[in-house]
């Protein structure tokens, strides 16, 4: 591909972009004069403060603090005091608008790092990926403290701290990764396979039915005998007392059989609850719970050839018709597995029930993958689920129990129970059986054919103690090769190797076998500063051009969040990487590599603020279709769409509005869109007039713009301003008096939010935010299209008052503040789509911050301009932005 290289290295001197002056518009002095100066001016200086002498130009932290205080006082309603002259609402709104935006600009200016990139340590995910690339295994790093937090991306060095505990943790994690890596290497050739026939369960079901019928008969006899004893006149006194004790509950009364003369022992009727009260078992058997459902199951055709996936009826240890669960034998090693299922949907199963969930440990319902099932019992299909087992899976039985279950049939007890009782209401039995499994196979795939991870190639020592221990010179050069690989090509100093060797000796003398001592020693390498930090020396504090090796590191951590591979390192070694055409080609190669997921996913999560997605659970009573599998798929849509745009180098505009979606079968069903063929996400052309297509059409985005129960027009409006329109509202100010006037009233959303327009403190931001939120009200809190909404007021006890139920047709017409009006969602979407330059600008800023690991500064304006204008020349093609950033002097400069 061709790339414009005009900008490259013409000079390293940055355009002399002066930070713009931050100044409050002098027009506000009128307001100060009228309402502030009498107390804070030449005559009086209440609180030792004069506003007339406070500089309108903000260029020091001190001045900024004073204006912050002014802003706080007005926001909190303290100034001007209630009994003093008040400014007009309009003038006050304007002042608050300007002042809060001025404070944002001032903080930016005063906090500007002047383009200095602070050295950073690997963040949590880069650390994990670096170990993965080196040793071929992925370990759980969640015990490391979360990165960043104070603002910005998790690549910003200034925000990445290190603590004493962390230094210890790196050593432990390094050790863990080595144990895992050694185990993978040693078990590489192992092949294992087990086969489970679905019909294994059938005799168990039949036996259970037989038992239930028999136990019920016995229980009825026992009950009659106890009741006869209760009815005896001579027992009246004790029975009266027991009735009182048991609250007149018949089954609890029977529980007290031992105190009723003549009442028989349930044990004599064959009820033995192993040390607990036998009467509980007898009482329970009376109802023979779910017997009808069990008989329905046993009466299904093809139970001799397979198993159906039904609902939960009894404790799974008694009888489990809800899922198939298989333990991967403990002696099977770590590695890559495939779980194969020959399965089918029952002939009349409704479409939405033809999905199979796969995961580990059914009780916690962690869904790892969901597949739509199109096979029939006559002609079943075989689906395959890949599975990676690590040493972590060996720690408990729960972590090795693979399960298969109908999607969403029992995500939790509330939800499963709700579905089950709905079915009973419908048919008197329980949920109709929809999925059938012929057999399940679990197979370990030998990975000896896979290339060895570079860390092990470099090490090149025996990995077990069958071979003799390495000699000191062998060990020394092995450690040197390994450390060089770990340190991304930088050779460790000789003294460092001396220390490692000395440490190895200490461990050996203390009794460690050679490989144990070796792992301990290598763990030190993986927790040494040269591994943890991405350093770019800058002697004399001067800006300088990166050398090719450093460029390779910067490039691969940008596009992979992982260390450079052999190809990149070789090109760097030869000094070719920095050649514009080579660099552009490598950029393409890295983006095409699956590892680019390491860039796209975390970047998207942070750029679009996706962390909110996991903040709350959806209310399943209101949104039963947004089950766990759908939720996972909805989040996937965001990532898969952006991956598609990147892969096909499509325009950023597609993220604002497009005539296609990238969805899988679950979402296709959720959205009511036809055409997905495979089990993966696919690009599907949308029918005319679909609200889907682009970020604003995605369920995930609307789910985040609510709380799982109701929509939040404010959250949505602010998100659109921040992420799509590059017009972020100032952060929500502290200490604003709360709006409580409307609490407890059943008001339409628009009426409720209109209150924001009353007080200047709210109006100055909400007049921009709220209208956008109104335009998105046709999407409910789970991202489905709706035309009406309703609300109930809460009564004095805080419970919804059904009498107050108010339903209305959604009116999504509104107008952007000082901008065009729109009559519905489609109108709003068109307006947003027309502002693609603003979107491109926000995207460029996010890319710069993420890639360079520092906040955006004023000096970045020319770079941002270049990225946007170069992008515009190619219709805002996604990769164009990445290329122009990578070609920029900033990307090549420490």
């Amino acid at each position, binding site marked *: 591909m061709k790339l414009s290289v005009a900008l490259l290295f013409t000079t390293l001197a940055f355009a002399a972009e002066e930070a713009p002056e931050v100044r409050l518009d002098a027009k506000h002095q009128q307001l100060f004069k009228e309402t502030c100066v009498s107390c804070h001016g030449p005559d009086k200086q209440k609180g030792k403060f004069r506003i007339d002498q406070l500089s309108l130009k903000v260029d020091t*932290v001190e001045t900024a*603090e004073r204006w912050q*205080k002014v802003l706080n006082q007005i926001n*909190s309603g303290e100034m001007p005091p209630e009994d003093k002259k008040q400014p007009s609402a309009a003038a006050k709104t304007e002042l608050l608008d300007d002042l809060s935006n001025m404070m944002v600009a001032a*903080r930016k200016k*005063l*906090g500007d*790092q002047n383009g*200095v990139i*602070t050295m*950073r340590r690997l963040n949590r995910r880069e650390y994990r990926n670096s170990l993965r690339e080196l040793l071929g295994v992925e370990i759980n790093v969640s015990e490391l*403290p*979360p990165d*960043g*937090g104070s*603002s910005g991306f998790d690549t910003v060095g200034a*925000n990445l*701290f*290190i*603590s*004493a*505990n*962390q*230094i*210890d943790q790196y*050593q432990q994690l390094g050790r863990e990764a080595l144990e895992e890596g050694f185990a993978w290497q040693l078990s590489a050739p192992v092949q294992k396979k087990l086969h489970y026939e679905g019909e294994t369960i059938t005799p168990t079901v039949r036996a259970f039915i037989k038992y239930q019928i028999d136990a019920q008969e016995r229980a009825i006899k026992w009950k009659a005998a106890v009741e006869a004893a209760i009815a005896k006149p001579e027992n009246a006194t004790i029975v009266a007392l027991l009735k009182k004790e048991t609250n007149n509950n018949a089954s609890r009364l029977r529980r007290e059989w031992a105190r009723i003369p003549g009442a028989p022992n349930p044990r004599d009727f064959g009820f033995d609850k192993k040390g607990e009260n036998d009467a509980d078992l007898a009482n329970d058997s009376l109802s023979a719970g779910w017997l009808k459902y069990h008989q329905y199951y046993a009466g299904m055709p093809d139970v001799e050839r397979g198993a159906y996936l039904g609902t939960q009826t009894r404790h799974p240890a008694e009888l489990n018709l809800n899922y198939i669960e298989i333990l991967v034998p403990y002696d099977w090693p770590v590695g890559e597995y495939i779980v194969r299922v020959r399965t089918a949907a029952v002939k009349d199963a409704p479409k939405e029930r033809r999905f199979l969930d796969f995961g580990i440990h059914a009780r916690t319902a962690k869904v790892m993958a969901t597949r739509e099932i199109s096979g029939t019992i006559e002609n079943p299909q075989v689906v395959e689920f890949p599975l990676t087992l690590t040493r972590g899976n060996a720690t408990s039985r729960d972590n090795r129990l693979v399960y298969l279950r109908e999607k969403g049939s029992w995500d939790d007890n509330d939800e499963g129970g709700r579905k089950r009782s709905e079915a009973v209401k419908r048919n008197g039995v329980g949920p109709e059986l929809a999925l059938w499994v012929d057999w399940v196979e679990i197979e370990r795939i030998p990975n000896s054919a896979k290339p060895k991870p570079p860390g092990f190639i470099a090490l090149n020592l025996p990995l077990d103690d069958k071979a003799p221990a390495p000699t000191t010179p062998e060990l020394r050069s092995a450690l040197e090769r390994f450390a060089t690989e770990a340190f991304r090509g930088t050779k460790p*100093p000789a*003294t*460092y190797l001396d*220390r490692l060797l*000395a440490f190895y000796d200490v*461990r050996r003398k*203390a*009794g*460690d076998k050679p490989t*144990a001592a070796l792992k301990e020693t290598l763990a*030190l390498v993986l927790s*040494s*500063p040269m591994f943890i930090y991405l*350093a*770019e*020396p*800058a*002697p004399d*504090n001067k800006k300088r051009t990166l050398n090719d090796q450093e460029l390779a590191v910067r490039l691969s951590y940008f596009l992979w969040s992982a260390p450079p591979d052999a190809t990149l390192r070789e090109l760097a070694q030869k000094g070719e990487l920095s050649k514009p055409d080579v660099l552009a080609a490598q950029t393409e190669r890295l983006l095409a590599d699956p590892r680019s997921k390491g860039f796209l996913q975390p970047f998207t999560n942070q750029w679009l603020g996706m962390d909110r997605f996991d*903040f*709350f659970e959806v209310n399943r009573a209101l949104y039963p279709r947004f089950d766990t599998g759908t939720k996972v798929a909805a989040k996937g849509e965001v990532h898969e769409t952006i991956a598609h745009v990147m892969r096909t180098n499509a325009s950023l505009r597609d993220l604002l509005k497009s005539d296609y979606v990238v969805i899988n079968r679950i979402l296709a069903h959720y959205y009511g869109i036809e055409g997905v063929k495979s089990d993966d996400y696919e690009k599907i052309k949308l029918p005319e007039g679909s609200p889907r297509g682009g970020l604003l059409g995605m369920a995930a985005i609307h789910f985040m713009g609510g*709380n799982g129960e109701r929509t939040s027009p404010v959250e949505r409006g602010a998100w659109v301003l921040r992420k799509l329109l590059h017009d972020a509202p100032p*952060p929500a100010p*502290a*200490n604003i008096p*709360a*709006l*409580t006037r*409307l*609490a*407890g009233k059943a008001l339409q959303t628009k009426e409720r939010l209109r209150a924001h327009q009353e007080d200047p403190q709210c109006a100055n931001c909400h007049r921009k935010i709220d209208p956008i939120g109104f335009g998105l009200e046709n999407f409910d809190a789970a991202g489905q299209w709706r035309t009406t909404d309703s609300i109930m007021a*809460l009564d004095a006890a*805080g419970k919804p008052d059904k009498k107050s139920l108010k339903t209305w047709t959604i009116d999504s017409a509104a107008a952007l503040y000082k901008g065009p009006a729109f009559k519905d969602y489609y109108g709003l979407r068109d307006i947003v789509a027309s502002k693609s330059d603003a979107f491109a600008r926000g995207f460029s800023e996010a890319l710069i911050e993420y890639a360079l690991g520092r*906040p955006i500064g004023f000096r970045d304006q020319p770079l941002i301009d270049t990225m946007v204008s170069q992008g515009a020349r190619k219709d805002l093609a996604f990769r164009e932005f990445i290329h122009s950033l990578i070609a920029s002097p900033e990307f090549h400069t420490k």
Partner: protein
Amino acid sequence: MSLPQTRRHFLRSSSALVALPVLASLGFQRFASAAPVPTPPKRLIFLGFGWGITTESWFPDVKQPGKDYTIPAGLAPLARHKADFSVIQGLWNKYSNDGHWGSTMWLSGANRFAEAGQTFHNSISADQVAAEQLGLSTRFTSLQLNGAENGEASGHGPGLSMAWNASGKPIAGENGPVAAYHRLFAKDNTPIAEQKAMLAQRRSVLDTFVENARDLRRNLSKNDTQKLDEYFQGIREIEVRLSKDEQWLGVPQPKTDLPEPPPGLAGREEIKIMYDIMIAAMRTDSTRVMTYRQPVSTLLTSIGVKVAPHDMSHYHSTMGEKLEASQRRDLAQSELLAGFIDKLKSTKESDGSCLFDHVALAYGSNIRTEHNLDNCPTLVTGRAAGLKLGHNIIAPKDTPLCNAWLAMLRGVGVKAERHGDSSGELTQMVA
């Protein structure tokens, strides 16, 4: 045989124990048989909850200052201790502007924007000021405890615990009761010679890291050198720990009758156990300075509240279930605190007094509710610092929280001129 990887591997989870010597005197008197009963040491504790409280029902009526105030609904579970705690109203950190940061600057009063050219700045937290002086003679200089969940979900804001060191960098904490218990009571049965060998080995590991860091530092820019200083600071902290370990070598490991907490505790159960662990830490005089960044998000789940925590703090807009959630949270937190005070009172010291006599404890958040950062909820208890207890104290509006921290620091005998943005000691809270 092979060397243990860490001392923690020798954790013994059983609860066998012997009565504990008062370790305060151990430094010099550990072998003296007829040592006089020593005066129990003073301790300082900060308990923080992220998302604040329910303004309307947590604070006592400002019109009832002093002793004769009606216990508000949110503090009702604390009624039995009414004479033994005070609520202070009117305190804040004037530089705080971040509506979701309930703990980041709570104990430091710092201005996030104080440093030109940076977007984040913090300074030393009050507990660490105390630790510098009170932490010298205990096994742990200070102890930072966290909820097992991620602090952001609970409205605590950035930070690795509530503690920030002298350079304003975050100090890591123990996440959850199991980690805290292990840190405090990990049983070490290793023979002393072997322990010494292990310490030496740890030191040689640190030397390896330091040397590698020095090689890395060569030719770094000034800015990056400063960044790498954080690493050296971390190493120094480990070294201090190692020297303490060395100093305590051979001193019997503290024993506690508290069994090892089961893994997976969350919310209310977690807080309860963590309070027990804090009691155990004081009984064994393992440390005298503790902070606990309490979980709020899982607390809600554990008491059956389904409202999302941040939503709850915005109860004003809808009242109803969010308000109810907020008030149930207040009750749960007050109940837990009341239980903690019960235990502080019932735990005897060697001289016959109780722990409560030797503890100064502050309980609160930088967030009142919603994004309100004024009138930060503040409750103080314990008799160690000579505080005025049993009062509804109304400080002048917008008094620096750091004035209260200063009073507490001085009250437990820490020499401090000032702290954070303090303008003087809050004398109103001193008896």
